[in-house]
């Protein structure tokens, strides 16, 4: 029978189903970080249990670790205690791989897993982090879970859950020059809303998606959670297979051929039906930016701050008005007149080598604007950092006036010292512009790495690369 990619992944992992439809789903890969796991390990110990399959675990410290002065260790005592708890828990449980603080391959777990080949098509992948949806770019069923479910996976190697509905987002056409997967993701969220895909797993299909690199597909799937989706998916094709070949945890030798044969079945069958379908035209897209405090509050960078009075629904209207007060913006203001204080280039959305190359290309030989008080570039992992340095990108960034940091989640959520102060406005390549997300009272404008680079050079939100030449 014809099946969607999601149905194939779901049914191949269900090992038990009760009368109400609640299923036990086998979990192949468990990514563990320092923030959402200590209470789970504690619960496991208290119940006298141990990890069911330690070889399913990839662990690293990413959320609360500093991104500078690593020689000093972790000066924040609470963060240090959390990272030490992870060290001790993983030492006890065992893991396929652990990248502790300051180790060569430490980084954001959603960057590290794929680059090591530990994220593979056909797997179920979970992590106590909502941006686990990133790994869906490899046709893996990947989603974020809470700490109780982290404990459940540690204890049983399964999750108890109901099947989601399916949504196809079909994108056709060539992305215009200067428009990236991040812009596509923001445009999708603008179209369907932050609850648009609640209860659904999204599969991204169409010629545009097929043309995207794995890095760009990860950016797209990463933001699926911002549309409310349980997970995002992209089918396997030659791009996926080429990316995985030869990576540290990728299948080797005769296993490789067997794996590839299986991976090639991981696509939606021609006549399979989705519960919902959304169509997008890539050719009409422009660089996008958020103006408010929800990822659905998006306009073209060349556009203007919208007017709440144009919104008919009173609750939504008040939400827009509240967002404008928080962001200190007035309706009708051109986005290109909005000055910024800081720039953050990083996060599991946009801190891969491809992102950094785009930024370097734009800022090479130029200087950041004098009104920009801090411009951070935080690579997604140790491996990304080494690659960037091998290509000389670090010198380009430093010459332009950027700070070149150690890997981690950093200012995406401001759990370490990298954060916005009250009233500061930031052009950010991260994924959430919620009130206080990047620091209490801070104001975030989400955009692509290219447009963050341009904003750093002009000191304001700017929709055209040409405006910096």
């Amino acid at each position, binding site marked *: 029978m014809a099946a969607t990619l999601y149905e194939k992944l779901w049914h191949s992992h269900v090992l038990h189903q009760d009368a109400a439809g609640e299923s036990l789903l*086998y979990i192949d890969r468990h990514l563990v970080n320092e923030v959402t796991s200590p209470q789970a390990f504690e619960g496991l110990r208290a119940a006298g249990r141990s990890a069911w399959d330690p070889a399913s675990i990839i662990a690293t410290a990413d959320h609360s670790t500093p991104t500078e002065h690593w020689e000093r260790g972790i000066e924040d005592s*609470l963060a240090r205690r959390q990272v030490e708890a992870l060290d001790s828990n993983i030492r006890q449980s065992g893991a396929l791989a652990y990248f502790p603080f300051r180790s060569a391959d430490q980084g954001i777990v959603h960057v590290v897993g794929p680059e090591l080949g530990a994220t593979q098509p056909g797997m179920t992948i979970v992590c*106590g982090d909502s941006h686990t949806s990133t790994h869906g770019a490899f046709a893996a069923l990947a989603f974020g879970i809470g700490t109780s*479910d982290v404990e459940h996976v540690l204890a*049983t190697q399964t999750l108890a859950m109901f099947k989601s509905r399916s949504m196809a987002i079909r994108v056709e056409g060539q992305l215009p020059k200067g428009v990236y997967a991040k812009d596509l993701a923001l445009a999708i969220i603008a179209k369907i809303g932050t609850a648009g895909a609640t209860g659904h797993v999204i599969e991204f299909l169409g010629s545009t998606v097929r043309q995207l690199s794995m890095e760009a597909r990860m950016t797209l799937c990463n933001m699926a959670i911002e549309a409310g989706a349980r997970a995002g998916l992209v089918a396997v094709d030659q791009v996926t297979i080429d990316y995985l070949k030869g990576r540290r945890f990728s299948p080797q030798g005769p296993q490789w051929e067997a794996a590839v044969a299986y991976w090639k079945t991981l696509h939606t069958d021609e006549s399979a039906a989705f519960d919902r379908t959304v169509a997008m035209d890539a050719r009409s897209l422009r660089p996008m930016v958020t103006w408010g405090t929800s990822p659905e509050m998006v306009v073209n960078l060349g556009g203007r701050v919208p007017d709440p009075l144009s919104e008919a629904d009173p609750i939504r209207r008040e*939400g827009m008005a509240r967002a404008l007060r928080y962001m200190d913006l007035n309706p009708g203001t051109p986005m290109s007149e909005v000055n910024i204080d800081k720039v953050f280039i990083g996060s599991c959305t946009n801190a891969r080598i491809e992102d950094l190359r785009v930024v370097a290309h734009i800022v090479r030989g130029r200087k950041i604007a004098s009104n920009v008080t801090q411009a951070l570039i935080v690579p997604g992992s140790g491996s990304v950092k080494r690659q960037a340095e091998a290509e000389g990108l670090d010198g380009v960034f430093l010459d332009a006036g950027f700070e070149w940091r150690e890997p981690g989640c950093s200012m995406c959520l401001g*759990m370490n010292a990298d954060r916005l102060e009250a009233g500061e406005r930031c052009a950010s390549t991260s994924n959430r512009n919620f009130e*206080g997300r990047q620091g209490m009272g801070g104001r975030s404008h989400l955009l692509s790495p290219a447009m963050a680079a341009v904003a750093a050079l002009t000191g304001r939100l700017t929709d055209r690369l040409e405006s910096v030449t």
Partner: protein
Amino acid sequence: MTPFASIQGPLALLDRNNVDTDAILPKQFMKSINRSGFGPHAFDEWRYLDAGELGMDCSKRPLNPDFELNQPRFQQAPVLLTRANFGCGSSREHAPWALLEYGFKAIIAESFADIFRANCLKNGLLVLTLDKPVIDQLFSAAKAQPGFAVDVDLQACTVRSSLGMLDFVLESSTREKLLNGWGDIELTLKHAAKIRAYETSRRQEKPWMFS
């Protein structure tokens, strides 16, 4: 998990869409490695006028008079009424832990974000959805009558109030777990033999996934 009993009491109102988990429990409190201590920091950046840090005594901090839930009439209310997409964003379970410790036992909304909803139910915090017109009516009634109370009956899956009786839908297995206070892990481990059998055959068919 404590078995869920029926809940009677006034509604607290948070008349907004898209309340995210960063707002429910800001990130600085996620450095705790405990499951408790989050209640005084629920909605910290909206609730207080000063900046909050983990471990501080919140009893003397200046409250923000403009934050809805600080109104005296909502203190001790066990049921929160809110709008669409409550709990969106981060998967942090610290958010439901904070809400439970704050004193909420049930949340009524138009819709919830998927991960947040699952996290609440794992902790015995009942999250239930009603249609928008019904939510509108509840907001109107509760705004007009201070102390407007509801009776949430999980056994019957009803919300009773002076507006009448409303039915809500919850998966039967979820309802049963809540009513009995059953933990998921214990239930799942009853199927340990099935898990092992699945794993054995998966190792044979797709050995590369296990190395």
